């Protein structure tokens, strides 16, 4: 019951924020260095005349699907920049089901930038759905191609550190993002810039600067205040021996 109430309340907050954004009251969105760094890694690859390896993680039929969607959103931006600057972009889909999505994104990006002839389907390197076969493929590609930059966005597990350390060995600048809490420490320690937790979900709104999308990000912040208030009130009530709020929010 609490979940439904929270969803409805959050839906109302989102509707209010979208309404305000449409009226012209667009909230400020804080700087996300991880997304700003995408331009830097693309520029580095362009100047060095080397490639960029972009890989998206997360199964589309599981709880990590939002992370994969966020990865696709950033791929769209990176592909358009790469097409504009004539930079060699190589995409490695984590799962076979990603192949048509990333192919479509990259192809459409080249078309949008007026260079449809530069799209090459062989730049989409699929290795395997099996975790370590995929990891071996990407590590091998980093070692062989010696790209300028590695961008990895989405849901990662043990392969995350393998990619980042291989990139470090070959002096590849890496930008990573994940909402998998167990991989966040590795992403933070081993990448030049990173997106952790909710930051990767804000990428679409941050990149497009669409007022309505930015409004939904602001709604997330209001939701955070609601949760913080509930935590504060809950602590006070629980300390006083009153458990009704704890019972309501219990899943």
């Amino acid at each position, binding site marked *: 019951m609490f979940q439904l109430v929270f969803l409805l309340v959050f839906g109302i907050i989102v509707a209010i924020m979208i309404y305000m954004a449409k009226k012209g009251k667009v909230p400020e969105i804080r700087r996300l260095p991880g997304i700003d760094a995408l331009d830097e890694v693309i520029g580095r690859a362009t100047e060095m005349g080397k490639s960029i390896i972009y890989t998206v993680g997360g199964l589309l039929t599981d709880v990590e699907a939002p992370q994969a969607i966020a990865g*696709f959103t950033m791929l769209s931006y990176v592909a358009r920049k790469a097409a504009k600057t004539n930079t060699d972009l190589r995409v490695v889909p984590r799962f076979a089901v990603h192949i048509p999505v990333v192919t479509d994104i990259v192809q459409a990006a080249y078309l*949008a930038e007026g260079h449809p002839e530069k799209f090459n389907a*062989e730049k989409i390197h*699929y290795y395997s759905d099996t975790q370590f076969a995929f990891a071996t493929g990407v590590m091998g590609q980093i070692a062989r191609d010696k790209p300028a930059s590695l961008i990895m966005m989405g849901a990662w597990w043990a392969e995350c550190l393998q990619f980042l350390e291989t990139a470090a060995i070959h002096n590849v600048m890496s930008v990573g993002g994940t909402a998998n809490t167990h991989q966040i420490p590795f992403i933070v320690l081993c990448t030049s810039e990173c997106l952790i937790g909710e930051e990767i979900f804000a990428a*679409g709104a941050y990149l497009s600067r669409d007022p309505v999308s930015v409004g939904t990000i602001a709604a997330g912040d209001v939701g955070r205040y609601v949760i913080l208030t509930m935590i504060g009130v809950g602590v006070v009530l629980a300390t006083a021996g009153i458990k009704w709020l704890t019972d309501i929010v219990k899943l």
Partner: protein
Amino acid sequence: MSTFYRSQVPLIIASLLAAFMIVEFFLDWAVLRTISSDIQSWGVVISAFALGLGVVTLTRNNVGIIRRREKNWPYYLWCLIIMFTMIGSGLIGPLGKHPVFLWLYNNAFIHLSSTMYSILAFFITTAAVRAFRARNIDAALVLVSGVFVIMTLAPIGATIWSGIPLIGQWFLDVPNMAGMRGIIIGIGLGVLTLGIRTILGYERAHLAGSGGEK
């Protein structure tokens, strides 16, 4: 294919299905549960079919490299030979029981996977060496807390000083737990807002590359 079919139709399907799944989550109706289960099965079936697409993509890329005699082309040929041997022997009935398939699986695949996983031990060490340098205050805090946590988890920590496990456990239970819970709450809200944007059709960069510029 027109933009409508490439962008709008997937968006409408995704929005309708997402809205349906939310309704099904809150309404305990058997008919909705059955439909929801079927929809999830479709996802699994589509993923399974996509593996065929993966084989086609891998074959096309590798054949291109072999035909052009690019550097290391024999390895790409070897990859194709092994892949088709595994697929072929695996499909000979009874499925997955052919001696060649089982031999390759038990003697190559499992050991190679274990080896790749084991490499993590070395990568964690090299990452720790680079990370545990007190270049600034933040890095120094990581270094100090990391040393206490490692010494807590290693038996030698308690032998050196009985207070080490207490301090290490405090780092795990208080600052680490608080930070992680904050991040998890943020992730939950981030997923909600992304979901709402996707259902309403504002998040569409993954559809036919219609993503905007910064």
